[in-house]
C-alpha cells in the first residue's frame, strides 16, 4: 500500500500516521471543522475536511470519508479505535469500492460485535464463558434467567461497549427498573435494545490477550495486558505483563484466545478480553475487533509495532512472527491522561493547553496529539495522551513512571495526572494485588480522608 486514509482523530490518528511514515506510506488525514489545527492534520501528507464539528456528521460520515479516500487515491483506510473501527457496514462499503479496510472483515465485525452471539460461538469452540442467559425477550424470561443465575448479576447490551447499556443488579427488587434503564441506554447509544444477563464475578481481574492473524489461517498471541484499573468500565492504567499471570496461565489464556480467533477465521489484529478470578480460572468477556487504546504496552514488551503489523497483514502479507519468537521482555505501564479530574462526580473539561512540558528519557513514550496552545474541543473524547514507560522489572517501571509523571505538565485544563500520581503511591497498586473495583474503593476512601 502506498497511500492510506486515517479515518480518526486525536492521539490514535497521530499514532497511525507515525507508523505509515516509517513504512514509507503517504497519509491522508480527515478532520472536522473543529479540528482544523489538530496535530494529525498538520502531520499528514494531505488533509480533507469531512464535515462540521459533531462526530455524527464528520468522523462518522461514511460517505464523505469514502469520497475523500477515492478522490485522493487512497488504497486503504485505517479506522483506528472507536468511530467506524467496528462498523461492519463501513468495512463492507470499503470493500465494495476497492479500498482495503485495515482490520478484520465485515463478517467478523458483525459476528463479534454482537456480544451474545460472540459468547455462543466461543462457548461452542470450547472457550470458557461467563455463565449467563441468551437475549432476554420478555419479563418472564428476565425473572427466570435472573433466578437461575442468582445475585448479584449484570445486565449487558448485545451491542455494548465502554460500559454503556450495562447495569449491576444486587438484589431482585432492582431487576425490572435496571433492565429498563439498560435497554433505554443501549437503544440511545447503539440503536439496539437487545440485552442479556451475566453472573457478576467479583473480585476479578480484567486481562486481555493481543492477537495477530494473517489471511492464511495463522494466528499468534502477543501476550496479555492487565487492565483491572478501571472506573465506570473505563480503563485508566494498563500494564504488560500482568502481575498475576505466570508463564503457565499466559500459555493457557493465549491458547484459548488463538482458539477463539481460529473458530471464526479471524484476520488482522484483535484482542480477546477475559475475566480471571483468584483461582486462575478465566472466562471469555468479549473480543475487540480493532486496535486497542492500550496497545503500546504490548509493543514495548514484545518489540512489535502492532499498527505496522496491522497494515502488513491487511495488505495480505503472511505473519512475520512464529509463536516461539514472541517472548516478553521487561515490564511496561501506560497511563491514560484524560481531561478530567478523577474524583466523585467530575466530568470532562475543555479549554486551551496553556503550558505543556512533555516527559522523556530512557524507556519513556508519550503518544499524544497535544501541543502548547492547542484548544481541546468539547465535541470529542477526553483522552489527551498516553504516557507509557518500560523497565526491566515492574518496580523499575513504576519508579520511571513516577518520574515521568512528575515531568509531565499540562496547564490550562484539569487532568487525571494527580490521580495517576496518587495511584502509584498506593500500596495495593505497587504490590500488584488489586481487582477491577480498586479505583471505586480508592475514590471512596479518598473522599472520607478528604
Amino acid at each position, binding site marked *: 500500500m502506498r497511500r492510506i486514509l486515517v479515518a480518526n482523530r486525536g492521539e490514535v490518528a497521530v499514532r497511525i500516521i507515525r507508523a505509515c511514515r516509517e513504512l514509507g506510506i503517504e497519509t491522508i488525514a480527515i478532520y472536522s471543522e473543529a479540528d482544523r489545527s489538530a496535530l494529525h492534520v498538520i502531520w499528514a501528507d494531505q488533509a480533507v475536511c*469531512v464535515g462540521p464539528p459533531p462526530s455524527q456528521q464528520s468522523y462518522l460520515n461514511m*460517505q464523505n470519508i469514502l469520497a475523500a479516500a477515492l*478522490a485522493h487515491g487512497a488504497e486503504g483506510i485505517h479506522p483506528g479505535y472507536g468511530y467506524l473501527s467496528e462498523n461492519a457496514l463501513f468495512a463492507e462499503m470499503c470493500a465494495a469500492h476497492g479500498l482495503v479496510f485495515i482490520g478484520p472483515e465485515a463478517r467478523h465485525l458483525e459476528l463479534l460485535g454482537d456480544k451474545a452471539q460472540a459468547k455462543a460461538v466461543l462457548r461452542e469452540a470450547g472457550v470458557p464463558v461467563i455463565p449467563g442467559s441468551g437475549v432476554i425477550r420478555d419479563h418472564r424470561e428476565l425473572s427466570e434467567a435472573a433466578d437461575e443465575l442468582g445475585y448479584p448479576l449484570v445486565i449487558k447490551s448485545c451491542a455494548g461497549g465502554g460500559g454503556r447499556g450495562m447495569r449491576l443488579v444486587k438484589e431482585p427488587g432492582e431487576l425490572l427498573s435496571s433492565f429498563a434503564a439498560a435497554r433505554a441506554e443501549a437503544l440511545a447509544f447503539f440503536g439496539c435494545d437487545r440485552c442479556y444477563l451475566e453472573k457478576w464475578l467479583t473480585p476479578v481481574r480484567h486481562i486481555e490477550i493481543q492477537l495477530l492473524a494473517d489471511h492464511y489461517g495463522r494466528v499468534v498471541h502477543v501476550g496479555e495486558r492487565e487492565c483491572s484499573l478501571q472506573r465506570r468500565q473505563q480503563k485508566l492504567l494498563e500494564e504488560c505483563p500482568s502481575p498475576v499471570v505466570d508463564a503457565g496461565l499466559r500459555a493457557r489464556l493465549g491458547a484459548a484466545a488463538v482458539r477463539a480467533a481460529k473458530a471464526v477465521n479471524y484476520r488482522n489484529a484483535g484482542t480477546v478480553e477475559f475475566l480471571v478470578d483468584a483461582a486462575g480460572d478465566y472466562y471469555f468477556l468479549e473480543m475487540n475487533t480493532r486496535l486497542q487504546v492500550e496497545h503500546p504496552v504490548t509493543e514495548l514488551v514484545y518489540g512489535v509495532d502492532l499498527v505496522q503489523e496491522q497494515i502488513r497483514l491487511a495488505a495480505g502479507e503472511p505473519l512475520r512472527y512464529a509463536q516461539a519468537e514472541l517472548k516478553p521482555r521487561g515490564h511496561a505501564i501506560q497511563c491514560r491522561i484524560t481531561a478530567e479530574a478523577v474524583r466523585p462526580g467530575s466530568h470532562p473539561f475543555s479549554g486551551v493547553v496553556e503550558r505543556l512540558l512533555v516527559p522523556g528519557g530512557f524507556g519513556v513514550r508519550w503518544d499524544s496529539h497535544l501541543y502548547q496552545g492547542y484548544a481541546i474541543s468539547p465535541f470529542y473524547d477526553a483522552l489527551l495522551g498516553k504516557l507509557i514507560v518500560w523497565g526491566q522489572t515492574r518496580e523499575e517501571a513504576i519508579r520511571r513512571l513516577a518520574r515521568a509523571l512528575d515531568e509531565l505538565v499540562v496547564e490550562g485544563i484539569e487532568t487525571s495526572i494527580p490521580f495517576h500520581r496518587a495511584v502509584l503511591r498506593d500500596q495495593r497498586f505497587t504490590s500488584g494485588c488489586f481487582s477491577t473495583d480498586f479505583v471505586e474503593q480508592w475514590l471512596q476512601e479518598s473522599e472520607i480522608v478528604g
Partner: protein
Amino acid sequence: MDFEQIKELIMLVNSTEITELELAQGGLRIRIRKGLQAQDPTAGPFPGGQDSVGLEAVRAPMVGTFYRSPGPDAPPFVREGDVVVPGQVVCIIEAMKMMNEIETEVGGVVRRILAKDGEPVEYGQMLMLIEPRD
C-alpha cells in the same frame, strides 16, 4: 417586520445557546448567525482581497470531485460573469460515483470560480464567489 423587531430577534438569539436562526415571513427572509469568527474556521477571509468584499461563497456541502459541467464535452453550468438565480445548478460534486448537483442559495453575478475542474474538494470548501443581486 420592522427594525425594532429584528433587533429584538438578534437580542433573543444572543441570549440563548442557538447559533443560527432562519425565519421567512411573506417576502422577507432573515438569517441570524452567531459567533462565526470563533466557531467556524471555514469562514475565513475570501481570497482576492478588496474585490471579494460583499461576495457570497458557494461552499461544498460534501466531499468529492468538483466538475464544472455535466459531462466531459458539455459546456460548463456557469462561467464567470454569468447571472444566476437562487436554486440554479452551478456545478457537480461526484462522491462515490454519484453525481450531486450543487445549487446556489443566492442569486447574482458569478464573480470568481475558485475550484478547479476535476479536482477533489473538501467539506465547506469555497467553490465560487457570487455578487448578490436582488
